[in-house]
């Protein structure tokens, strides 16, 4: 396996253009923390973005940061903390900004903070033909032209190499707190959603539910009081800022995504799940082997969802995608030589 380790976006463009001319298939690698996402792809070389790790511009009063894509999320958060801000993503320290965006991994707090794609306001991409292009702008609001950056977000490196982004930030909250309640997880989760206004996350599992709160000190206290009406004995733990990423330990983890009202039917009779209530993300810890995954995917499809593997073997699954012709045309125009992680995306794209 060859290794390409560019130092700049122009280096990257040269390398990708060269690879395209030789038919050399590339896998873009950041921090390797989300590399299991996507289908297996036979490639000839890895392109590491980690030498491109500079802050290009950061002005706290703009609540925007422009950074190179190979920057580690932990390093970025440390820089932003000095400005009293954060990028609302709960990825591991060693993950890269570009990797998080390319895999479309949202925060556990997306109930309140939204999807990661809505934090990307400008993006520079070296397309599969080696051409560097930009879309969006360094402003929090912008409707100038087609949002190509939205295509790149979650594209698993199949359209090009993300080399630089401008990110929308938010103020770092004063206080963060986790409340844990023991009992019927789903039921507790439902009641927490009804009772506590504006939680950052309600996370349910078999036998427990936890509530993630953040904000001004009084506000968090007010929400804690509301939660105590459900269970006066709940456990309170003040958290470091930012939250530590959720640790899901088994060899194979599936991230199912269903409409929130379908969570109950999905987890009925199981004890291997953790659910983001009100959002519809459910993580399943599966034993090795194809059968448990196949069985789970049938169940998820019945609940109108998708069930990609995010850790271990199993890929995205073979669910349908809309507008297949448009997908293929986009892939062909961004990556005419077909070198960017062929087959890693949905439906073999």
């Amino acid at each position: 396996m060859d290794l390409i380790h560019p130092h700049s976006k122009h280096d990257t463009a040269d390398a990708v253009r060269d690879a395209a001319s030789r038919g050399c298939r590339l896998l873009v690698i950041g921090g390797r923390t989300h590399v299991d996402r996507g289908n297996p792809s036979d490639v000839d070389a890895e392109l590491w973005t980690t030498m491109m790790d500079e802050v290009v511009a950061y002005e706290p009063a703009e609540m925007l940061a422009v950074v190179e894509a190979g920057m580690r999320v932990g390093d970025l958060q440390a820089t932003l903390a000095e400005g009293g801000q954060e990028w609302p993503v709960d990825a591991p320290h060693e993950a890269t900004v570009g990797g998080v965006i390319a895999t479309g991994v949202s925060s556990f707090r997306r109930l309140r903070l939204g999807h990661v794609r809505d934090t990307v306001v400008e993006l520079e991409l070296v397309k599969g033909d080696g051409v560097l292009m930009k879309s969006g702008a360094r402003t929090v609001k912008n409707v100038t032209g087609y949002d190509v950056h939205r295509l790149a977000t979650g594209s698993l490196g199949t359209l090009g190499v993300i080399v630089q982004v401008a990110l929308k930030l938010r103020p770092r909250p004063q206080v963060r707190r986790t409340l844990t309640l023991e009992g019927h997880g789903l039921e507790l989760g439902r009641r927490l959603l009804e009772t506590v206004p504006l939680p950052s996350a309600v996370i349910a599992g078999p036998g427990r539910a936890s509530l993630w709160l953040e904000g001004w000190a009084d506000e968090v206290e007010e929400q804690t009081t509301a939660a105590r009406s459900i269970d006066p004995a709940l456990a309170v733990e003040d958290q470091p800022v930012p939250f530590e990423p959720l640790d899901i330990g088994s060899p194979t983890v599936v991230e199912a995504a269903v409409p929130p009202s379908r969570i109950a039917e999905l987890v009925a009779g199981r004890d291997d799940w953790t659910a983001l209530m009100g959002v519809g993300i459910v993580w399943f810890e599966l034993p090795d082997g194809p059968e448990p995954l196949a069985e789970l995917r049938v169940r998820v499809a019945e609940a109108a969802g998708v069930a990609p593997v995010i850790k271990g073997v199993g890929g995205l699954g073979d669910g349908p995608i809309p507008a297949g012709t448009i997908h293929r045309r986009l892939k062909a125009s961004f990556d005419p030589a077909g070198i960017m992680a062929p087959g890693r995306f949905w439906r073999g794209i």
Partner: protein
Amino acid sequence: MADVEGARRALQDVLGSDEVLSDPLALRLYARDASMVEGGCALVAFPHSTEHIVACVRIAAAHGLPVVPRGSGTGLAGAATPIGDALVVVTAKMNDIVEVRLQDRLAWVEPGLFNLDLSTALRPTGFTYAPDPSSQQTSSIGGNVNTNAGGPHCLAYGVTSAHVLALDVVMADGTVERLGGEGPEAPGYDLRGIVVGSEGTLGIVARVCVRLTPLPPAVRTMLLDFTDVSDCAATVSEIIARGVVPAAVEMMDHGIIVAAESFAHAGYPTDAAAILIVEIDGLPSGVEAQAHEVEAAARANHVRTIRVAADDAERALLWKGRKSAFGAVAQIAPHYHLHDCVVPRTKLVDVLAGVYAIAKRHDLIVTNVFHAGDGNLHPLLSFDRRVPGTLERVLEASDEIVRLCVDAGGALSGEHGIGLEKRDFMPLVFTDEDLAAQACVRDAFDPEHRMNPQKVLPAGARCGDFAMMRGSDAAEAAANLPEGSWI
């Protein structure tokens, strides 16, 4: 060659004769949106269902007519201004709320539904649809989707794109696709995200699945009054620097305060140089903490008075003045040209000063009312186009304002879109390579350019070919432009 008569008969067979118009008055009425650009069309159709839209697209293709989707026609950039023998497809009669599912925090609605009607219908449920463009009484959800509309409350809640889960789209080839999904992740590239804001150039939105947002338990609306515009603008940056993201931060300058006050009687201080309307929402204690910071930021920048809305009625009144400001300027002069560009928040003071200087140089009246928290400026030039030479001065000043914003590191449009009006400014902010990639996206959806042709991308931006169109091609494209356009 377009067969208008054949298309008219075929459309009437499917939609009924009342829902297809071709009389001169109708064609004139639908020849423009709320921009200054006037075009022309051959037919106007009013579908009642997704199947009707499919028929419109297929019949137009079979008879060689381009298709221009239209919601309420409140767009300000000419995206819904038709050109040539176009079929204008008006979604206004598709205005039902199809389904509300609170547990999934979503609602399916038809594209012609007015934005405000959705929020009003949702209010008893404790949820809302967050984007609230100032046109919300008359602008449609489908139109909002196509312009990726903003509004005052997008500062905290994000623009339309963050609130659209899925779209049923009639594509250029007449097929119907569901882009996005009801769940938190959908398979495939984010085509939903591309269609939002695409100004009707990629397909016709036939149904929208919107995300519902819980109504905040507490809201505080404050009016901050300044004797100096720079102090007012500096307060905006200071609020953000203090770690507060208000739900809305709106700024109005002296000229617009006077006009809005005589129209809305909101009790605005008419001797102020500028005011800020700041709204904070959340939990009562959080609102208290943030209000404290906002007041401190304002005092540090010499605020004269701070008025807090005592109840919902007073809050509504404060907002009425803001949201009716554009109507109120009719008192200044019969015509206005409203700009929309975004600059970095920290450049607001300098850019505002530049806007005043440009207006003065061209002997024009300019007023400003805008989303200051987002850096989204709306300089408004008031004039009487019947006075010879005035329109030319307006267009020259407009050109200079756009360049001023771009030079400050801004974008061409924050929420109104590119349409016809700004498409030839696109090379100011994008390279040929950037525009070619955008052209590729468009071609992937609509290789034959049937949908709303000549909008958004400048003449000659082509997929796979970085050379911008020159010479005779460009002349031909320019010849197709409607009269009155200043692009």
